C-alpha cells in the first residue's frame, strides 16, 4: 500500500465509503421489509446491535497493525475530508446525539450555550493549534509539552491532566453504551456495558489509531443518517418542508404564541393550566410544611417516627402495586428502590426538598422557548398579587428580575467560553490532527471536522422546536382516554422519560401534567413522526455509534499517554517497537476494564463530570499550548506554574462550590456555577505561564528554533521533530 499515492488512496476510500453507505441504507430497507412481514421489535434490536458491532469489529480486524506510526497516528495519511468525519464521530458523544435536543427542549435559549460552545471551539483549534501541532508531528499532546518546555515535569503534568479529563469522559461514554444496549435489546445494563466494551476493544486493541480512524468514519456515517432521517420526516409532517433547519422559524413563532396562551388564565387552555399549577402550588406548600416539621423533629431527636410513617406509606403503596391485576415490574422495582433509599431522617429530608423543588417548578408559568436569560418574573407576580403596588415596590421587583437576568447571562457566557476553550484543549481531539499528511491538510481537516459536526448541531435546535410544537398542539388538550400511541408507550416503558398524570382530574392533558426526560426527544422522534420501528432501531444504533466512537478515541488517548509518554519517553527510551505496542495494548485493556467497572456502578453525577472535564482541560492545557506556539519567551518554569495554577484553581473552585464534593453554592464567585470553573482556571493558567517565564531565563536557542519550526510549514535548513 505504501507505493500508492495519496490521491489514489483518497479515491479508493471514497469508493469504499460510498459503497458502505449504500450498503447500510439497503440493510435498513431490508429490515423494514422484514418488519412488515412480522419481525419482532426485539429481534430488530438484536440485529442492529450485532450487525453494527460486528461491522466495527471487522474494520478493526482489517486495520490491525504492528507499525508504531500506524498504531499511534494512522500512518499520517488520513485525507482531510475523512479525518474530518472521524473527528466528528470522535467529538460527538452519546450526550450530543441523544441528550442535546432534549436539553434544548427543556431549557430553550439557555441550552444553546452547548451548541455554541461545542462548535465555536473549533475556531480556536483551527487558528491557534491544529496546524502547529501537525508540523510538530509527534504522537501525543504531552509530547509537545515535553519537547517545547523540556524536562519531564511539563510532560508529566500533561499526562496527569490528560488522564483526568479523558477518564471521566470515557466513563460517561461507556455508561451511555450500557444504556443504549439495554434499551435496544432488553439486556441488563451491566451486561450492556460489557457487550459494548467488547465492541470498543476489538477495534482499538488490534489497530490503534488506524483502526479507530476508519471505524470512526463508518460510525459518523451511521450516526448522521440516524439523526437526520427522522427529523426530516417530522419536518415534512409538520411543515411540509423537508429542510427542518429553515422551516422551523415559522414553527417557533407558533410555539411562542402557544406559550403566551398557556400563561394567560383568561383563555380556556390557560385557565386549565392555571388550575393544575394551583394544585402544584398547594403541594409545594404542604411539602414545605412537612420539611419544617421534620427539621423540628430532627432537632428534638424524634424524627424516627416520621421516617417510620413515610416508610409505612411506601410499603402500602408497594403492596398496592403488587396487588394490581397486571403488576408493572418497572414500577415495583422503582418503589422498592425508593424504600431502600429511605435510610433515615437525612434521606427523607433530601427527598422532601426535591419534591418541594419539583412542585415549585411545575407551579410556575411556562418559560418562553426563544427568550434568553428570563428574569424571576418578580414584576409580574407583584402586579398580580397587588395591582396597586407602589412605584418603589415595582422598582425593587424590576431590580430583582434584572439581577436574575444578569446572573444567567454571566453564566451563559462563562459556560460558552469554558466549552470552547475546553474543546480546543481536549487531547483526544487535538491528537486527530497529527494524522493528516501535511499542515495544509490539517487546516482543511479542521474545516471538514466542524462542517460535519455542524450538520448535527444545527439540526438539534430544529428538532427540539418541532417536538415542542407536536406536544403543544397534539398532546396538550387531547383526552387521557385516547393518548397518542408514542406517549402511552413511553409512559409505560420508562416513567423517568415520560410521565403523564391527570392532576386536576378533568380528563384532558395539560402541559403542566406532562413530565418529559431530556433523552426522550431523540429516542421518540421516529414514533412521533409515525415511522416504523426499524427507524427507532437505527436511531439507537446511531447513539451507540456516537458513544462507541468517542470511547475509542478517549481510551486510545489514555493508553497512549501511559505507554508512550510515561513508559517509552520516561522509563525505557530504548524499548523495542514490539515491546512498546505490547505495553500500549495491555494498558488499553486495563484502562477499558477499569472504566467499564466504574460505569457499571452507575455513578450519579456523570453529566456534571463530563462538563467538568472541559473546564479542567481548558485550565490545564490551553495556556501552555497556545503560548508555547505564539510566545517564544514561554519556558519550563512558566509551563509548570501555569499548568499547575490552572488545574489547582479550577479543581479548588469545583471543590468549594459543588455539592458532590461537599461544597456549597454560597461559596460561588460572581455566582458562576461550578461547571464553568474554567473561567477562573484559565486566567490563572495564563498568569502562571507569563509570570513563571518572566522570572526565569529565556528558553535555549534549540527551543526557540523548535518554535520557528512549528510556525512555518516548511523552512530550509530546518530541524526535524517528526517521530518515527
Amino acid at each position, binding site marked *: 500500500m505504501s507505493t500508492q*499515492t*495519496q*490521491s489514489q488512496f483518497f479515491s479508493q476510500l471514497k469508493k469504499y465509503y460510498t459503497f458502505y453507505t449504500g450498503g447500510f441504507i439497503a440493510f435498513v430497507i431490508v429490515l423494514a421489509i422484514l418488519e412488515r412481514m412480522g419481525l419482532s421489535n426485539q429481534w430488530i434490536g438484536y440485529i442492529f446491535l450485532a450487525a453494527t458491532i460486528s461491522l466495527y469489529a471487522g474494520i478493526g480486524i482489517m486495520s490491525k497493525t504492528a507499525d508504531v506510526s500506524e498504531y499511534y497516528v494512522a500512518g499520517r495519511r488520513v485525507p482531510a475530508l475523512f479525518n474530518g468525519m472521524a473527528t466528528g464521530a470522535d467529538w460527538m458523544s452519546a450526550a450530543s446525539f441523544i441528550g442535546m435536543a432534549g436539553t434544548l427542549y427543556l431549557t430553550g*435559549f439557555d441550552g*444553546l450555550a452547548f*451548541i*455554541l460552545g461545542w*462548535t*465555536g471551539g*473549533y*475556531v*480556536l483549534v*483551527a*487558528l*491557534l493549534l491544529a*496546524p502547529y501541532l501537525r508540523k510538530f508531528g509527534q504522537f501525543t499532546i504531552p509530547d509537545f509539552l515535553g519537547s517545547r518546555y523540556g524536562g519531564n515535569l511539563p510532560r508529566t503534568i500533561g499526562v496527569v491532566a490528560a488522564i483526568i479529563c479523558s477518564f471521566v469522559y470515557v466513563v460517561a461514554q461507556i455508561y451511555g453504551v450500557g444504556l443504549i444496549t439495554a434499551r435496544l435489546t432488553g439486556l441488563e445494563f451491566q451486561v450492556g456495558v460489557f457487550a459494548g466494551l467488547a465492541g470498543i476493544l476489538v477495534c482499538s486493541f488490534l489497530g490503534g489509531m488506524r483502526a479507530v480512524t476508519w471505524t470512526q468514519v463508518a460510525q459518523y456515517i451511521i450516526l448522521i443518517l440516524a439523526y437526520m432521517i427522522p427529523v426530516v420526516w417530522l419536518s415534512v409532517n409538520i411543515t411540509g418542508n423537508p429542510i427542518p*433547519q*429553515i422551516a*422551523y*422559524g*415559522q*414553527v*417557533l*413563532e407558533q410555539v411562542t404564541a402557544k406559550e403566551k396562551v398557556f400563561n394567560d388564565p383568561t383563555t380556556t387552555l390557560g385557565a386549565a393550566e392555571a388550575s393544575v399549577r394551583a394544585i402544584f402550588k398547594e403541594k409545594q406548600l404542604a411539602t414545605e410544611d412537612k420539611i419544617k416539621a421534620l427539621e423540628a423533629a430532627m432537632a428534638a431527636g424524634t424524627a424516627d417516627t416520621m421516617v417510620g410513617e413515610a416508610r409505612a406509606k411506601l410499603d402500602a403503596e408497594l403492596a398496592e402495586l403488587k396487588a394490581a391485576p397486571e403488576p408493572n415490574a418497572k414500577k415495583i422495582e422503582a418503589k422498592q428502590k425508593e424504600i431502600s433509599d429511605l435510610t433515615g431522617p437525612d434521606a427523607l429530608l433530601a427527598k422532601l426538598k426535591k419534591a418541594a423543588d419539583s412542585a415549585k417548578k411545575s407551579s410556575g408559568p411556562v418559560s418562553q422557548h*426563544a*427568550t*434568553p*436569560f428570563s428574569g424571576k418574573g418578580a414584576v409580574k407576580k407583584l402586579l398580580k398579587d397587588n395591582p396597586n403596588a407602589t412605584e418603589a415596590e415595582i422598582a425593587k421587583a424590576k431590580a430583582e428580575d434584572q439581577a436574575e*437576568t444578569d446572573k444567567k*447571562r454571566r453564566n*451563559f*457566557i462563562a459556560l*460558552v*467560553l469554558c466549552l*470552547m476553550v475546553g474543546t480546543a484543549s481536549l487531547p483526544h481531539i487535538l491528537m486527530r490532527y497529527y494524522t493528516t*499528511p*501535511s*499542515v*495544509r491538510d490539517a*487546516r*482543511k481537516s*479542521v*474545516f471538514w471536522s*466542524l*462542517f460535519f459536526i*455542524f450538520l448535527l*448541531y*444545527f439540526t438539534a*435546535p*430544529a428538532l427540539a422546536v418541532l417536538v415542542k410544537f407536536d406536544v403543544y398542539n397534539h398532546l396538550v388538550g387531547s383526552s387521557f382516554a385516547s393518548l397518542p400511541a408514542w406517549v402511552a408507550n413511553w409512559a409505560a416503558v420508562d416513567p423517568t422519560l415520560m410521565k403523564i398524570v391527570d392532576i386536576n382530574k378533568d380528563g384532558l392533558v395539560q402541559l403542566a401534567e406532562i413530565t418529559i426526560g431530556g433523552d426522550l426527544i431523540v429516542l421518540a422522534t421516529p414514533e412521533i413522526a409515525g415511522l416504523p420501528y426499524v427507524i427507532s432501531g437505527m436511531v439507537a444504533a446511531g447513539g451507540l455509534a456516537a458513544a462507541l466512537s468517542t470511547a475509542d478515541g478517549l481510551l486510545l488517548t489514555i493508553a497512549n499517554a501511559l505507554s508512550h509518554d510515561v513508559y517509552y519517553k520516561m522509563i525505557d527510551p530504548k524499548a523495542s517497537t514490539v515491546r512498546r505496542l505490547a505495553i500500549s495494548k495491555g494498558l488499553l485493556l486495563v484502562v477499558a476494564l477499569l472504566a467499564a467497572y466504574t460505569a457499571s456502578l452507575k455513578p450519579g453525577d456523570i453529566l456534571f463530570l463530563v462538563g467538568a472535564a472541559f473546564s479542567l482541560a481548558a485550565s490545564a492545557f490551553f495556556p501552555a499550548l497556545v503560548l508555547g506556539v505564539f510566545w517564544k519567551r514561554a519556558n519550563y518554569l512558566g509551563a509548570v506554574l501555569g499548568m499547575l495554577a490552572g488545574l489547582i484553581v479550577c479543581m479548588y473552585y469545583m471543590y468549594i462550590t459543588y455539592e458532590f464534593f461537599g461544597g456549597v453554592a454560597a461559596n460561588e464567585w460572581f455566582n458562576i456555577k461550578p461547571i464553568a470553573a474554567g473561567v477562573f482556571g484559565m486566567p490563572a493558567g495564563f498568569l502562571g505561564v507569563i509570570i513563571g517565564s518572566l522570572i526565569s531565563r529565556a528558553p535555549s536557542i534549540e527551543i526557540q*528554533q523548535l518554535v*520557528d519550526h512549528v*510556525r*512555518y*510549514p*516548511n*523552512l*530550509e*535548513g*530546518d530541524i526535524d521533530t517528526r517521530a518515527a
Partner: protein
Amino acid sequence: MQLSERHQEYWRKNLRLTAVLLAIWFVVTFVMIYFAPQLNDIVIMGFPLAFYMAAQGSLIIYVLVIWFYAHRMNQLDLEFGVHEGDEE
C-alpha cells in the same frame, strides 16, 4: 538558522489574519450573547435574531471562518515559499 525578512513577514501576516478572524469569532459569540435580549426583538422568517444566531447563524460563521483561514494560509504558504513539498 536565521529567519529572513520574508519569513518574518509571513508570520506577521499570519498573526494579523488570526487576530482578525478571532475578532469575528468574538463578536458573533460573546457580543451577540451579551445583547441577546435586545437582538431578539428583530424577527426574520419567524426566528428571533439572537435565537437564530445562537442556534445556526454563528455556527455558519464559524465554519466560514475556518474555511477562509485554511484557504488563505495555504495561499500564503505558496506566496512566501514555505509550502510543503508535493507528497502527492
